[in-house]
């Protein structure tokens, strides 16, 4: 047990290390001027001496490896440097923005998780009947449309034409009430959910149909169980571990979707922040955000793996079969 989880933690640390090194070097080798994000338009009027001074101050003149070493030492102590653009500690900047993304992504994730389960079960129960066919067709179409296009269409319809919902931001200027914030959440949330919902719902539908055709369902029926009970007590139950692991893998996907949606809706989460920092070479902020996203991705995958390997007795069954 200790070995198992120890191994996992080791893999986690190594992955994060490799990730940080890659992001660090690649971002520094990419063309562009990091000073722009620090000094803005003033950069164009700087003399070479001023430039050199500024770059020295930010430590950008040292070889990349030296810079990386410095970054490692500092970050171990929890110091991720300052954001060039915001002139504040990068950690603070991220912490300011994080709640927005957590709400958008987190609530979106929960919604996707439960709606997909519901939709999948509904479809499976009505297999090949009209309801199932309609949901399947509509679902396939919605999941095929790119997120940015859906966003634009929704903005066009609900914000521009009908003027029902706000088109951007997390709250209106000078207004900060809960209802206002919720109103601002509706459109981005819809896009996040629509983009992923059907993919998982369809997976659940097919998983349940697969389970229903297994032999143990016949035994359950022979015991005298009703169709409903067979569905919930046996089929859905057996499918949950693989669904959980699937959802754990989906965390990074949904996170990625959130980033795009945030950018389109100018939603002040870490998605927009990440985009800006990468575009304008705000190195310290970029590093912190990459590390955070990376951790979420790797953790999601690991949780999925652990669910698969430890919780589902069927996996142990396979191991046991090999032993005999």
């Amino acid at each position: 047990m200790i070995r198992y989880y120890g191994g996992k933690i080791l893999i986690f640390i190594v992955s994060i290390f490799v990730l940080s090194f890659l992001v660090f070097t690649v971002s520094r080798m990419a063309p562009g001027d990091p000073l722009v994000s620090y000094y803005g338009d003033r950069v164009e009027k700087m003399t070479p001496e001023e430039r050199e001074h500024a770059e020295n101050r930010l430590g950008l003149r040292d070889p990349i490896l030296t810079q990386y070493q410095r970054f490692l030492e500092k970050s171990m102590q929890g110091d991720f440097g300052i954001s060039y653009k915001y002139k504040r500690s990068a950690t603070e900047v991220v912490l300011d923005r994080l709640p927005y993304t957590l709400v958008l992504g987190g609530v979106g994730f929960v919604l996707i998780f439960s709606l997909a389960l519901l939709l999948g079960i509904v479809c499976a129960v009505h297999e090949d009947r009209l309801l199932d066919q309609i949901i399947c067709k509509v679902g396939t179409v919605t999941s095929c449309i790119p997120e940015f296009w859906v966003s634009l269409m929704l903005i066009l319809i609900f914000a521009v034409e009908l003027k029902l919902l706000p088109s951007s931001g997390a709250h209106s200027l000078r207004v900060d009430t809960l209802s206002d914030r919720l109103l601002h959440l509706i459109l981005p949330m819809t896009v996040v959910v629509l983009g992923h919902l059907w993919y998982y719902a369809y997976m659940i539908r097919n998983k349940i149909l697969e389970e229903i055709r297994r032999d143990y369902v016949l035994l359950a029926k022979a015991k005298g169980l009703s169709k409903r009970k067979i569905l919930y007590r046996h089929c859905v139950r057996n499918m949950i571990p693989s669904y959980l692991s699937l959802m754990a893998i989906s965390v990074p996907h949904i996170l990625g979707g959130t980033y795009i949606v945030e950018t389109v809706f100018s939603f002040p989460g870490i998605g927009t922040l990440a985009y800006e920092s990468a575009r304008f070479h705000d190195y310290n902020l970029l590093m912190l955000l990459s590390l955070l996203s990376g951790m979420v991705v790797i953790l999601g995958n690991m949780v999925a793996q652990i669910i698969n390997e430890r919780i589902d007795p069927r996996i142990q069954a396979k191991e046991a079969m090999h032993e005999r």
Partner: protein
Amino acid sequence: MSLIEIKNLNVNYKTTRGEVHAVRGVNLSVAKGEVLAIVGESGCGKSALLKSVMGLMPANAVVTGQVSAFDRELVSLREKEWQGIRGKQISMLFQDPMTTLNPTMTIGSQIAEALLIHHPKMEKEKVRKRVYELLSLVGIKEPEVRAKQYPYQFSGGMRQRSVLAIAIANEPELLLADEPTTALDVTVQAQILGLLQEIQKKLNMTTILVSHDLRVVSSIADRVAVMYAGKIVEIGTRDEIFGDPKHPYTWGLLRSLPEYSQGKEMLFTIPGMPPDLRQDFVGDAFAPRNRYALQIDYEEEPPLFAVSDTHKAATWLLDERAPRVDFSAMDMVHEVSMEEHEHAPRNHGEDPEKPLVSINHLTKDFELPGKKKMTAVKDVSFSIMPGEIFGLVGESGSGKSTVARCIMNAYTDFEGEIFYDEIPLHDRMARRRERRRLSTERQMIFQDSASSLNGRMKISDIVTEPFRIRHEKPKRGSLKKEAAYQLSYVGMDEGYLNKHPGELSGGQRQRVAIARAVATDPKLLIADEPIAALDVSIQAQIINLFKHLQEEHGFSILFIAHDLAMVRFLCDRVGVMVDGEMVEMGETEEIFANPRHAYTKELLAAIPKIGKERP
């Protein structure tokens, strides 16, 4: 008094390829406490009959007729009403215990579920006690521990015991058993049958048992019904059916058991194959396979003629105008449907004293996740002489197939030595040098022909693939001619050349697999359970084919099987494997007459003995 009365039951399936008449007008009545066995080959409708008694037919099936039991008419029951009967008054045992239990629930909770569904108010403590009681009733020791375990921690036999515990949880009046021992090893089969019999007596449960295995049926049934093409063609007490069968099909089934052909040249076979149930039959469905078919058999369906009060058979041969037929004369008629070919028994020019294959101290380990090791084969040594048929028997997991795969070099990381005609197969360089010869001269046939033949290839391509791979010109000129020749060699005509494996029956597919294997004139044929998945009458045909081909070609066969009677009939020498070790080896008759090892004795004792008298 009869517990269940079936009248004119019909079951039709609607499929995309037409309507299947699975059960056609069956009448049956089973008395309280009686064990009725229904025998027949796959696709004769016996499973459909059983499932329709319990209302477990899929949605595309139409069931008509009457099934009356417990003062009710069952066929017209609605799903809700069924739920009160299933598991309480009628229970069912299924064929494959490996898949019938829910893999993610503990055994105990699955048994408890069967109790609670009919007694929702039962106290927890009582349920637990009853679960333990049921587990010990079906012979599972330490029920307190076992109840908390998952199905994967149980062996096949233990799982079937657990399914039995679920079935008898509410002491049903009627138990339906659908091939309950078919998927189990021979020795386990005997245990489960014994247990079933014991519990049936204890609870005085009326039982309907469906099986294709006459030996299973003969050991447990009071009465036997024989089904063919959806109809009951003969029914009677066990002694009547096994001692004095009246229907030529029953007679043929009994006769094709290898026990009756020991020492003979060939096994008795019923010609042809079970019919397709999508057609409308005119006359007797068995007529095309019946050597004694009369004109009227092709025109009018025979009624059930009463032989005695209990014994009935549906064949025109029992009509008083029909000629008297002595079935035992059939014994003499040996079907030689296969053409004689130009191959004379050949000697490959080697010394008959020198073994073709010799295996010295073969050991094969498998690495498991977590640095564990499983030894599948432990220090096995034996040899196969040229022209010899060597039988390898043992339970599933005893390492028989692993030995075969080592000889075929499907596994190369074994310890020990294997020589094939003095080529050291354990040496990589030698294998490479002799690659061409080895791939021609060693051929393998698998158990499941449905998955071992590529479903997207035509039969002609499958048979001639060895030539195409080697860019070799076949003996018969063109590939097409060669394919036709090889097919005729295994008793199939040219019409099959352009078909795909999916269009063939199991027996035909196995013939194709054999044709492919012998196309390259092999010296060694390895057959891994080649008949285990086939019907009784087809098994005999395939075994005859093996014998015929071996006599013509003179190749050696390593025959892996668990059907001891077949092994006894076919093989010259036998090796018995237990847990990866070869525990006994010798001349076939010697082993069967004087088994030495305890396991061999157990194995021989476990074969259910057929009826009391011979037909």
